[in-house]
């Protein structure tokens, strides 16, 4: 809350100043939004099924971001429509209140623009490996705190975030609670990105959460373009957590103080298709499914299936995608992913998964997205997941 108060204090002189600068900031501001219709069906062999329709989207307004000070606000909504069954399992609505309609303030921040340095304070949507927005539903995760991004050094980007509260994608409230437990004194993140080497990109993050657990992440990406139509890439990731605090739970599926995960990826991208082989092995007991919030960005991630679980899973994943030739009604892509996960531990979840999608973009703003995945579990009932998403941006 002190950060929010600081932001408020920064805002008041701006408000009280009035005058043309303030009016110009609004006049040159922007408004955009998105409408979505989402259908989700979960079909399990022996457990309760779930399905729901949701309609919603977002509306965002921001003042002129070219000014020294700027501000933005965004609301997301997800409203149940039509028939449904066990809709809380779809994670589309407000699970704090019986899976009723979910209306949230996902962004409300004041920004300072210092050229190559930007500071935002307030409610934020983030895009980091262990704290991100997760846009796989209508309403994303969001975070309350401060985020600084500096790009003053050549080829280098530095991120420094402090998060004091987190709002889950199924809640309207910001709480001192992450996906994997209470955060007490908050989470501080330092991210450093370097692109100064030819073909290489280096990324490193450190999340300091003294009351939960801290995590170090390193990633190296290599890209080689022999010509305009072919791209080869290879990447490695490493996630290591420790320093468990009072809220840490080592075998937590979403994250704990014993993550020790290595992942690798090799891929080939042609003009209209791609294929990649992804691998991950978690040598620790803790999972890393959601991390602190959102969905942890590990290479072995499909729609539902992933290699981010707890009890040391080892996962192989083949992803391929093909872009169909553009036609009068837009362009389409189809994709297929196969996931193979095994664990040495008794408690581990062994499964094979098959994922396919068809996505059609009528134009840059309008899309229809059909996603299907089936998971064949070895030690629990199988499950099938279907999502149909129509989206329009304006």
């Amino acid at each position, binding site marked *: 809350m002190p950060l929010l108060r600081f932001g*408020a204090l920064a805002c008041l002189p701006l408000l009280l100043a009035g005058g043309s600068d303030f009016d110009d900031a609004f006049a040159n501001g922007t408004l955009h*939004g998105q*409408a979505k219709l989402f259908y989700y069906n979960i079909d399990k062999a022996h457990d309760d099924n779930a399905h729901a329709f949701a309609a919603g*989207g977002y509306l965002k307004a921001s003042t002129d971001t070219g000014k020294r000070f700027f501000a933005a606000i965004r609301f997301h909504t997800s*409203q149940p429509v039509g028939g449904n069954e066990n809709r809380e399992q779809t994670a589309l609505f407000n699970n704090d209140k019986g899976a009723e309609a979910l209306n949230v303030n996902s962004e409300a921040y004041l920004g300072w623009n210092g050229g190559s340095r930007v500071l935002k304070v307030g409610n934020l949507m983030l895009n980091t490996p262990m704290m991100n927005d997760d846009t796989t539903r209508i309403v994303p995760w969001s975070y309350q705190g401060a985020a600084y991004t500096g790009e003053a050094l050549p080829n280098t980007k530095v991120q420094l975030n402090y998060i004091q509260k987190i709002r889950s994608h199924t809640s309207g409230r910001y709480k001192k609670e992450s996906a994997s437990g209470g955060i007490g004194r908050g989470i501080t993140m330092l991210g450093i990105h370097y692109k100064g080497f030819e073909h290489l990109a280096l990324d490193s993050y450190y999340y300091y959460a003294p009351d939960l657990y801290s995590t170090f992440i390193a990633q190296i990406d290599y890209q080689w373009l022999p010509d305009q139509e072919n791209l080869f890439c290879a990447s490695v990731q490493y996630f290591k957590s420790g320093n468990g605090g009072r809220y840490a739970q080592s075998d937590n599926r979403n994250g704990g103080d014993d993550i020790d995960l290595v992942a690798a990826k090799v891929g080939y991208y042609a003009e209209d298709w791609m294929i990649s082989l992804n691998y991950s092995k978690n040598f620790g007991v803790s999972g890393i499914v959601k991390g602190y919030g959102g969905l942890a960005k590990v290479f072995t991630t499909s729609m539902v299936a992933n290699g981010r679980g707890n009890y040391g899973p080892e996962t192989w994943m083949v992803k391929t995608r093909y872009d169909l030739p553009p036609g009068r009604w837009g362009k389409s892509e189809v994709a297929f992913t196969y996931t193979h996960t095994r664990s040495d531990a008794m408690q581990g979840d062994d499964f094979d998964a098959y994922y396919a999608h068809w996505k059609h973009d009528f134009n840059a703003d309008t899309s229809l997205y059909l996603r299907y995945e089936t998971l064949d579990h070895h030690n629990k009932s199988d499950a099938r997941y279907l999502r149909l998403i129509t989206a329009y*941006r304006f």
Partner: protein
Amino acid sequence: MHTFRYINAAAALCIAGTPLFAAEKAVSLEEHGKQSVEVDSIADALTHGKVKGLIRYSGQHRDSNYHVLQDAPTDTSSEKVQAYSTLGGYLGYETAPLYHTSVGATFYTSNPFLGSNASDRKGLGGLYEADGGQDSYNVLGEAFIKFQTKEHMVKIGRQEMPDYRFVSLSNIRMTPFTHEGAVYENRSIEDLKLNFAYITKQKDRNAEKFQDMVRSARVELGSGGKTKVRGSYDPADFGSDGKYAGKDKAMSMAGLIYGQNEWKMELWDYYVTDFINTLYCYGQYDLHPSETWKVTLAAQYANQQDVGKGVAGNVDTWFYGLKAQAASDNGMLFFLSYNEIDYNEASYDGGTIFVRWGTPQMFNSFQVQDSELAGTKSVGVGAQFDLGALGIIDSTVIRFRYADYDMPDSLYMTDARQDRTEATFDLRYSFAKQSGFGIFTQLDGLSIQFRLAYDQFETDYDFDAYKKLHGYDLQRVTDHFVDARLYIDYLF
């Protein structure tokens, strides 16, 4: 009720239009802020709509736990403080009309901001209080489809209903009341406006959910040992907390406004199934004693009766009011007003008028006191000065008011209350306009409003004797308190 849920969802989705007519994104707020004109494609409808936005800081402080909305009859003699300090407002978008039809949606929000928003200071309704604290709230308060021509307007879904007297916004906290239903307005006949509505639900100012029109009226069986419901009623309609727990009830509304030159009359009827019917009449006549002064004489009368099943028992009450107002061309205004509310112990709460669907309409509804309580006889006086128009201080309007509320206060009375007075001071300052506005005029750009009320309660009663006679306390308030409110608004 599902019908309106679908409309809410559809209103959001209709903004999406069809894939073949997609348009550019992120158009400037300035362009969106202009008045929409009829367009001829879905793409234009989507990209040339209207934005409405309000950034509001609001702080309110009352050095008493006297809560006029519920008229709490519990002992309030402690020095408890109610207060909130919040930042929020709303953001909405309505498409440009295509074939006279548009859709819109508005989000409303309020968030704790600076100051103390402790749970034990709740009660004023600036933040979400239903869970026992004072927390943020976000709500999709508007989601509608609208058809409008010069003569007809039909609007269906969640929406602001600002102009229907007993049904209105009452935007005096962070966010206004909004309602869910269908409205039809007709202006086919010159000087005549007809209004019809079927209202299923209402969102309270600081609520996240819409409730039916009986719950929204804040019906309760009783409180503090006093039974408010009189006559026959079905106990199954009330929960263990004494609040209404029966079936949802909707309101049908009809209104007629007719005016010509110097005079104007209004006739309204609000019928809530199995609850009450409210008839409201209003008339005013303008005199011009000189070239620079206008005198307005106004009268109002309302009658409220139970109907159908009568879920709140007997309701049989009325009120009337008289007002004289003088306004000068250069920005001075003076008024004198009188209200009387029926006192009827056979009616709900002794004849108190149900007014919680919008702004209370009594002439002497001031800052804290609404003059709706049973048996109230009130006299109010006031003066307002547009200091910009008077050439004293640009962009500033001030107002002073004073009212004396003479309550039924004999010991034998079932619904006795303390006599009270209220003095208020209001100030409005605009950063965008020099003069020609009032305390509540909607002003674009940045404006500040400061409101102060001083309430004095008569305490020379034998409270113990009253309790001994009736078995519950006569409402007891500290002999005086101050209610202060600050609003900093930026409207775009």
